C-alpha cells in the first residue's frame, strides 16, 4: 500500500474539469435550503398559533407590545447591508480589494442589527416578556432568537471573509458562499418581522 503512506498534499490532483459550480457554493446552498425549511417550520407554527388567538386580547394581558416601529428601522439597516454586499460583489469582480469597503459596511450594518436587537431584548425582558411568561413570549424569543443565532454565525463568516480579503486570499467561491449565507439571514428577516411583530 504505497499510496497509503502518501499525505493528502503529496497526492497530485487528478485531471478533472472545473466544476460548473464550486463545492463550497453547492454546500452552502444545500445548508441554506435546510435552514429555510427550519424557519418555514417555525413560522408556520406561529401562523397556526396566531390563528387560534383570533378574538382574544392581543398582546395578552400583562405582556408588552412588540416594538414594531423601532424594529422597522433595524429591518431597514439589515436590508441596506444586503444591498451594500451586492455592490461589494460587483466591486470584487472588477478588482478584489475594492470590495473591502462595501464588505466592511455590510458587516457594520449587520452588527448594528444584532446589537440593536440585543438592546431591544433587554428592554422587553425588563417589561416582563420572557420565554416562560407566555406562549406569545416563547414564540417571540424562539423565532427571533433562532434568527439572531444565524445572524451572529453569518457575521462571523462575513468577518472571516473580510480578513481573507484584507490579506488578498479570498476566492470567488468563498465570497459567493458567504454572500449566500448572509442573504439568507437578510431575506428571511422580513418574513419573521411581518409575521411576529404584526
Amino acid at each position, binding site marked *: *500500500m504505497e499510496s497509503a503512506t502518501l499525505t493528502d498534499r503529496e497526492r497530485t490532483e487528478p485531471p478533472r474539469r472545473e466544476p460548473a459550480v464550486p463545492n463550497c457554493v453547492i454546500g452552502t446552498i*444545500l445548508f441554506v435550503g435546510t435552514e429555510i425549511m427550519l424557519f418555514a417550520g417555525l413560522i408556520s407554527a406561529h401562523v397556526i398559533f396566531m390563528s387560534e388567538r383570533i378574538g382574544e386580547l392581543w398582546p395578552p394581558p400583562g405582556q408588552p407590545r412588540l416594538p414594531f416601529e423601532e424594529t422597522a428601522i433595524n429591518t431597514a439597516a439589515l436590508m441596506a447591508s444586503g444591498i451594500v454586499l451586492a455592490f461589494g460583489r460587483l466591486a470584487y469582480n472588477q478588482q478584489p480589494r475594492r470590495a473591502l469597503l462595501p464588505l466592511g459596511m455590510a458587516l457594520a450594518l449587520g452588527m448594528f442589527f444584532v446589537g440593536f436587537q440585543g438592546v431591544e431584548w433587554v428592554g422587553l425582558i425588563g417589561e416582563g416578556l420572557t420565554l416562560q411568561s407566555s406562549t406569545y413570549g416563547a414564540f417571540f424569543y424562539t423565532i427571533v432568537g433562532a434568527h439572531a443565532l444565524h445572524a451572529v454565525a453569518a457575521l462571523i463568516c462575513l468577518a472571516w471573509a473580510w480578513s481573507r480579503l484584507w490579506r488578498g486570499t479570498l476566492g470567488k467561491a468563498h465570497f459567493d458562499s458567504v454572500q449566500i449565507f448572509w442573504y439568507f439571514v437578510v431575506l428571511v428577516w422580513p418574513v419573521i418581522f411581518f409575521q411576529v411583530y404584526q
Partner: protein
Amino acid sequence: MADASVTTVEGAVEHHAHEHHGPQGILKYIWSTDHKIIAMQYLFTGLFMGLVGGLMAYVFRMQLAFPGISVPGFGVVSPHEYNALVTNHGSIMIFWVAMPVLIAAFGNFLIPLMVGADDMVFPKINRLSYQVFFVSAVLILASLFVEGGGFGGAWTAYPPLSAQGDYNLSSLGATLWLIAVALEFIAFLLGGINFITTMMNSRAPGMKAYDIPLVCWMIVIASILFMLSVGPLIAGAIMLLFDQTIGTGFFDPARGGDPILWQHLFWFFGHPEVYVVLLPALGITIDIVATFSRKKVFGYKIMLYTVVATGVLSFFVWAHHQFIAGIDPRMANVFMVTTLLISVPIAELCFVVIATLYGGSITLNTPMLWALAFMAEFLLGGVTGIFLGATGADIYLHDTYFVLAHFHYTFFPIAIIGTFAALTYWFPKMFGRMMNDTLGKIHFWGTIIPFNFIFIPLFVLGLGGQHRRIYDFQNFPELAAMQPFRVFATMSLIVMLLFQLVFFYNFIQSLRKGPKAERNPWKANTLEWTTESPPPHGNWPPDQLPRVYRGPYEYAHPDREEDYWPQNLPA
C-alpha cells in the same frame, strides 16, 4: 452501554490496522477523514445499535408472550420499562440503524468509489458528521439509564405526553432522547451535503448523469429528501425541548399551544423519512439484481424518474398518519388520494426490478438471495399499506398491530435485508476477503423464515383489534384469547435472533481466514471493482484515476464476448 459502543468503534479500527503503517497509531483511524474509514465507523456503530435494538425486541416480545415472567437476561419488565423499550427500539432501529448503515455507511463507502473520486469533497465535515452521530448514539443509550428511566412516549413523541415530566414521569430520559434525535439529524445533514456535492462535482471524467450507478442516485435523492423534510421537525424539536426544560407552552393547550401542531411537523418529516431509508435499500437491490442476473437494468431512466416522482409525492401524503387524530376530516380524503397515488410509482419500481430478471442468467448466491428477498418481502409491506391509506379502512386499523406488521414488512426488508444484501455483496471490496457462501445461505434462510413467522401472526392480531403499545393484553378480555399467536411470534423472534450468531461467526471468520478477494470477484461493471480490494487511501493510484466510457449496467452486451463490460474500459 456507552462503553460497549466505544469498543465497537475501536473494533472497526482494528480491522484496518493491517493496512496502516503511519506514525500516529490508532488515533489516525479515529480522526481519519478517509471516507472508507468513516463508512466503517458508521457501519460498526450501526450494527452494534442494531444488536441493541434486536435485544430490546427480544425483551418486550418475551413480556408479550409470557406476561409477568422474569425475562432471562433482563428480569421482570415493568410497564414503564416496556414503554421505554418499544419507544427506543423504534427510534434506534430507524435513526441509529437504518439511516447510519444504509445512507451513511454505504453512502460514504460507495459514492466516492462508484463515481471515481479519491474522497468526499468535504472530508472534515464528513468526520464531524460521524463524531456528532457517535455522541447522539451515546446519548440515546445513556437515556435508558438515567433517573426515571428511558423515554416511553413512542417514537412519534406526541405532546403533551412527551412535553411534560408530570405526564411521562421520565423527564430526563425524554430530554436526552430528544437531544439525541436532534443531534442525529444534524449528523445526517452534514453527511447529506457531502454526498450531494461529491456526486455532482467529483465524478470521473466521462461520467454523465445517466452513467452513475442507481445506488448512488438513490442515496443522493434520499439525502435531498431528508434535508428538505427535516427542517420543520428540527423546529418542532427545539420547541418541544423548550416545553420540556424551561416550561414554555408551545404544545400545551392549557397555555394556548396546540398538540396537533407537533404531529404536523413530525409527520411532515416522518413520511418522507420512510422513502429516505427505502431508496438506498432499493438502489442496493437493483444493483445486486443486475449483477447476478447479468442483465442491464430494465429502463434506467424510468427507474430514476419514478424515484423522483415518489420523492415529490412523499411531501403530499403526511397527513395520512393523522386521519383519526382530530384533523379536519374533510382533509382526509385528499390525503388518501395522494397516498394511493404513491402506490403507482412504487409499483413501477417493483415492476422494473422484476422486469430486470426477465431473460437473465441468475446466480442465487447470498447477496442475490438477500436482494430477491427484499423484493418479495417489501411487496407485502407495500400492499398492506394500501389498507392504511384508505380512509374508511384506517378508522379501524389505525394504531393496531396491523400497522405494526405493515411497517415491519417495509422496514425489516429495508434496514435488515438491505443491510445484509449490501454487506455480503461489498464485503470483498470492504475487507479484501470473501465471505463463506454456505454459512451465508444458512443465515439467510434462518432469518427470512422466522421473520415471516413473526409478523404474519401480527397481521391477524391487528385485524382482531389488538392495539399497540400495551404491555399485557390480559387486561383486555377480547384480546387475551389470541395469546397463542403472540407466543408463536415470540418464539420465531428468538429463532431469528439465534441465527444471527451464524452471521457474526461467518463475519469474523471470513475477516480472519476468508480467501483473499480479487479486484472484481462478481464480474461487475461499476468503478469500485476496478481498484484493489480493499481500496487504498485515495482509492486509486493518483495518476490512474478511472475514466468512464459507458453506463453501469452493460451486461451481456451483444458486441462483446464476455458478459460484462466495465465502465472504465475504452471501447
